[in-house]
């Protein structure tokens, strides 16, 4: 099973070591012991959210804000699950772990890879998820160790989060001809940010809440024309 699953996860191996490392350095440079990176990678196991988590940890304790941010960043995972209901059916207790480990990268592997018939699918998905999780924990921990023990000026390293989302945005942009959903996302959020910063600076921390409502409303209002254009 390992020999079937491992080769397909190699691109993820490199990606996770690198992105995990970035997160580890970021968290360690915020003053956390490197074991925190191992802990975060094991429990949260969500690349983009962990970067946002560093941002949250550097602000005063606020559970409400943590919940809102996690919802905002990870709501997309609901839709990953939707397309895997059939695939993950009947794989037993392993399913709980497979759901836990359903990151963007694992999702893309499980979705795209053809699994030969003689392979136990449940075990294949499980092994893939375990391997990716291991790469991620390793990457984060290595980054944490570097961040803790190597002296360097880390100013600006938090830009790694921006860089990551810009690249994902670009890849999504190139994957489709219909750009209005992406533009709705950028437009609504930018609008809410500017309005809140100018008129309600006290509530600026929460600008993502109105942004999400705005995006949801726009997508609902333009459902008919958008669906027509998507099906072209």
């Amino acid at each position, binding site marked *: 099973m390992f020999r079937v699953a491992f080769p397909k996860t190699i691109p993820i191996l490199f990606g996770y070591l690198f992105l995990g490392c970035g997160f580890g350095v970021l968290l360690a440079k915020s003053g956390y012991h490197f074991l925190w990176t191992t802990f975060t990678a094991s429990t949260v196991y969500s690349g983009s959210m962990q970067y946002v988590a560093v941002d949250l940890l550097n602000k005063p304790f606020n559970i409400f804000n943590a919940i809102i941010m996690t919802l*905002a960043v990870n709501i997309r995972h609901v839709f990953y699950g939707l*397309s895997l209901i059939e695939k993950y059916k009947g794989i037993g207790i392993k399913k709980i772990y497979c759901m836990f480990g359903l990151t963007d990268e694992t999702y893309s592997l499980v979705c795209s890879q053809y699994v030969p018939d003689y392979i136990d699918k449940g075990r294949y998905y499980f092994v893939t998820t375990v391997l990716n999780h291991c790469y991620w924990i390793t990457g984060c921990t290595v980054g944490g160790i570097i961040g803790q023990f190597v002296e360097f000026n880390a100013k*600006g390293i938090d830009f790694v989060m921006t860089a990551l989302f810009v690249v994902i945005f670009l890849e999504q942009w190139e994957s489709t001809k219909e750009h209005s959903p992406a533009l709705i*996302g950028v437009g609504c*959020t930018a609008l809410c940010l500017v309005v809140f910063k100018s008129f309600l600076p006290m509530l600026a921390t929460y600008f993502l809440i109105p942004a999400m409502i705005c995006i949801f409303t726009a997508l609902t209002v333009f459902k008919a024309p958008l669906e027509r254009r*998507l099906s072209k």
Partner: protein
Amino acid sequence: MTQTWVQSVITLLVIAAVTFVLRALPFMLFRGNKSVPPFISYLGKVLPFAVIGMLVVYCLKDVSFISGTYGIPELISILVIVGLHKWKHNLLLSVGGGTILYMLLVQFVFI
């Protein structure tokens, strides 16, 4: 560290719990042969694009375009990331190159 270690653990566990619930939710809601409502599957097609757009703006929330460095280092770095990515389509190169460039810019050029 801004938060105490107990606060940090709580923050991280809350994030982990919400993430798990989001990932598990569709499997819980649409168990058996219940089919997915058309509106939900429509959202599944468009929302991921909108959410990433939202997150790009979120990342730039603290950049001021009317004072300080006027967002110039961010703008330069993003343009380079786009260029690198169009050229090589390599996640590591684009993210790594863009971040290092930004760090150099804010540490040595736009101080």
